[in-house]
């Protein structure tokens, strides 16, 4: 994977990333807002990625995403969780919640991402890694990432089709 959390980066002296991409660009923000809603579904994972994918896909369809977009979200969560397995030394946690407008998957682990452009550049096909976070940024409607010495939180947002829109 793209060095997002490679040991060399982890050991570097550069400051950790705090980023909140939005219409105004990549202005850093101090912290993510606390997860919404009432009782998000929560899971802890170590290496059981297939189980995580099954859960995400189920909720994505239940929330109203089309099959194709449910596959996108499943892929994105799997890539982020794969980073946990590769680079964090502890289990990760996944929370899922949705409302009428969007479904959000929040993945948190104790790894640290120090590259503020992680996942923003298209990697070469000859590269040994680096596609994971790039794919995440391609398929999700919004990606929020915050990383400091305590760990990394990544929030993946997918807009839901408007109900009654002939979807």
């Amino acid at each position, binding site marked *: *994977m793209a060095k997002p959390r490679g040991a060399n980066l982890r050991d570097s002296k550069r400051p950790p990333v705090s980023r909140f991409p939005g219409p105004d660009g990549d202005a850093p923000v101090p912290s993510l807002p606390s997860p919404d809603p009432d009782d998000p579904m929560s899971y802890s994972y170590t*290496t059981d*990625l*297939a189980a995580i*994918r099954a859960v995400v896909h189920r909720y994505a369809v239940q929330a109203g995403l089309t*099959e*194709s977009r449910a*596959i*996108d979200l*499943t*892929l994105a969560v*799997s*890539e982020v969780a*794969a980073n946990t*397995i*590769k680079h964090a030394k502890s289990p990760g946690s996944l929370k899922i919640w949705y409302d009428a407008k969007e479904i959000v998957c929040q993945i948190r682990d104790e790894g640290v991402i120090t590259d503020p452009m992680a996942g923003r550049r298209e990697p070469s*096909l*000859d590269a*040994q*890694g680096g*596609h*994971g976070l790039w*794919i995440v940024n*391609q*398929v999700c409607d919004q990606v929020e990432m915050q990383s400091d010495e305590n760990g990394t939180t990544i929030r993946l947002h997918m807009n839901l089709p408007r109900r009654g829109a002939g979807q």
Partner: protein
Amino acid sequence: MWYNKCVDLLTVSVTARESAGEPYTLVEIAGEADVTNTDELRRLLDEEVSQQPRTLIIDLSGLRFMDSSALHALLRVNRALDRQGGVLALVSPQPAVAKILRLTTADRLIPVFGSVAEAAAG
């Protein structure tokens, strides 16, 4: 069938080998391929590449999911075959697998066919 190796959710089967007189080497990958079984996938594919097939066909029709780690394993096979004058072809990816091939433009680098017969015909 030469062998049928199962690692967790991933099954890799070699059903034809050029070295045994077949016109191509055919590997079937089924289940879910991700970072948790990429090492084994890479090792099994390397074994086939080391026998220097001219045409290596990977049938993906039974593969429900592939992440970027598994994709890198396929790209590595493609590079190795290219260096030794062979060709890699992929067959029948399911939607989730087709998606990652398309997103990364790997499907422009590695030819993708609808059937083994088409892949064999080139």
